[in-house]
């Protein structure tokens, strides 16, 4: 798939439930072969947006194009969807389960069996093939759920909070799989409220807050547009300096270091000098890119 091809396009999409508008006038473009982060706090409208893309619910107004076509149930077969709320049939064997989900996506015959073996090996659960899913641990079940969303080799994979509740080793494993899929030319929509996770794997992002889009674009661009006005500081003493509103607009103190956001017109050199003058012993003073979280907060504040 060519890099400039568009996989998903939303144009002015609105969806309400009674009085409540879950998604308002949302337009966005997901390019092929990229990881698109759909980000925002809980209740921002991420899940509703996804449900419209996978054709579970229909928008009240606006248009959704998938692979350049209007969505219908046929196109559903090209999508893999791992919802945030997900589960497995408790009494069904893992292999039967995967076969069923593949059949629902119109995969047939021998192909299913080889895919099942292939994927179980990839998530290191081959020996659990004939176990009932209720015998699996929660983490194993999550990996099987992930496999149900990719067993039919979809062109578009939508993952809603795929890593929540997984241990770090399995998070790494799935992250690798996702990046492999991206390398294979698949488009991935990755929805999460955990900005730190999104930061590591997304190429493009769309920030949603209170049913509306706040920002959309490439992660690189947005980060460089914000410039390096964030400083990671580790020092003893000199606290008063960081709290000077003329220099620092915001400071977040972590366990052993502080993240300071420079005030408009302030200069990092000046801040460093003031810290030294105040007698602080400086362990670390580094200009860093703003975190996605900072960007999000700034954008939300700007928008309101």
């Amino acid at each position, binding site marked *: 798939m060519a890099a400039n091809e568009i996989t998903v396009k939303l144009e002015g999409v609105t969806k309400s439930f009674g009085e409540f508008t879950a998604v308002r006038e949302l337009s966005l473009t997901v390019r092929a072969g990229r990881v698109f982060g759909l980000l925002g706090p809980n209740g921002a409208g991420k899940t509703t947006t996804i*449900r419209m893309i*996978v*054709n*579970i619910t*229909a928008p009240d107004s606006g248009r959704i194009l998938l692979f350049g076509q209007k969505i219908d*149930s046929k196109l*559903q*077969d090209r*999508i893999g*969807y*791992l*919802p945030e*709320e*997900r*589960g*497995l*049939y*408790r*009494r*069904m064997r893992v292999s*039967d389960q995967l076969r*069923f*989900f593949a*059949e*629902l*996506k*119109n995969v*047939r015959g021998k192909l299913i069996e080889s895919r099942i073996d292939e994927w179980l090996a990839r998530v290191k659960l081959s020996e659990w093939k004939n176990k009932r899913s209720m015998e699996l641990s929660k983490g194993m079940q999550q990996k099987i*759920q992930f496999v*149900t*969303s990719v067993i039919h080799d979809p062109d578009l994979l939508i993952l809603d909070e795929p890593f929540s509740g997984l241990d770090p080793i399995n998070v790494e494993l799935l992250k690798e799989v996702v990046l492999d899929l991206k390398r294979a030319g698949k488009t991935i929509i990755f929805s999460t409220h955990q900005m730190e996770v999104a930061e590591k794997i997304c190429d493009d992002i769309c920030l949603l807050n209170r049913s509306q889009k706040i920002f959309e674009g490439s992660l690189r661009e947005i980060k460089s547009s914000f410039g390096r006005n964030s400083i990671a500081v580790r020092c003893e003493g000199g606290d008063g300096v960081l709290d000077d509103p003329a220099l620092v607009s915001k400071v977040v103190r972590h366990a052993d270091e502080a993240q300071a956001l420079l005030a408009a017109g302030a200069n990092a050199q000046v801040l460093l000098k003031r810290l030294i003058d105040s007698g602080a012993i400086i362990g670390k003073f580094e200009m860093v890119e703003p975190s996605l979280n900072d960007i999000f907060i700034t954008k939300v504040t700007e928008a309101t």
Partner: protein
Amino acid sequence: MTKFLAVVKREYIQRVRAKMFIVSTILLPAVMSLFGIVPAIIFSIETPPMRVAVVDQTGKMYAELKRSLDGDSSGQGAQSDNTSISSGLPRRGLGTFRLEEVNANSQSLEVIRATLDQRLRARELDGYLILPPDFVSNGKAEFFNRNAGDIVSSRALQSALNRATREQRLIEAKVDNKTRQELFKPVNLEGVSLSAGGQERDSGGRFALVFGMGFVMYLAILMYGQIILGSVVEEKETRIAEILFSSVKPFTLMMGKLVGVSFVALTQLAIWGLAFSAFALYGVGVLASRGMSLRIPGVPLSHYLYFGLFFLLGYFMYATLYALVGSMVTTAQEGGQLAMPIILILAVSFYLFLPVSRSPDSPLAFWVSIFPFSAPVAMVIRIITQTPPFWQIALSLVIGFSTVLVIMYAASRIYRVGMLMYGKRASIPEAIRWARQA
């Protein structure tokens, strides 16, 4: 279509393979035959005969009473007495007596009674009967019994005494032997029902058949309806629904589920049907050769077909309602509560089986077999007792299946919204709003 078949296949294979299916297939006929056999076994338990002393002050009743009681226990003359309480129950083992005559003239009554009381306390006797001299004319006697709770025995004794007294009175009225025998000749009432194929004997067996078929219908609809409820709630509870809906249309999923489980039900009913026919063909003969006579009325093939059709009608009606309920609730228990009114309609239609089978042509029978929610059970009961005109069967089916379509339409609209609503049980107004949406 392939997706629909995938859903059907999953429902069918997963369920037929389950232990639950195998157990219930074997268990239901076992339980039902148990209900048939256990009472027979209980009543056939031999109890020791009751030892009764008779003080016959009339001097002529003892022989007659003994004859009457003996006749009773050998099974003759039982039907001739309308006070007999044991109609329909096997007589063997009930109300057998060992009589003993006490000479009433040698001592005074007080002395005799004192002796008998003593023997009673010493458990040498179970009871004694005092027939005063004027017994034949005024019919008053006293029975002293160690076990006052044994109504069966005292009733049996009473009815034997009744017959004996009647006989004695006729003798005293100078009715000759032959006439007396004529008078007491028992009548024999055999139940014969008219069916399309001619006369059929043995209404008792037919009654059991009607009850059995009605019961199986009721039970199967209820059981498979609840399987649907459980299956829908599982998909909602485990949140599989959302993944499924991203692959199949909610309507396809719901229908696939209903159809898949209906095949499971038909498989089970076919097993039961074949087992029943096999038993009717061979089992009865085997039992008969061992001295257990059992008559199973013949069931024409058309009745099996009607049973299947009305089962499908009832199944799709109630199972769709169960699917609707399942999509509105969060747990199976909640579903059970919400489904109570549904079960009630079905239960009532089953309990109406007695009036319907008694007078299958009554207006009540007609209307309950036309009303869609009671039709599956009521119509099958009517068909087996006395097949109604074909137009009534057809009308019942048409109204029934039209109702099913309406329910399916409403259910599919509520289902696709309800399945994605987590958290709390939906109220009925909410469900109505969902049905109206989009």
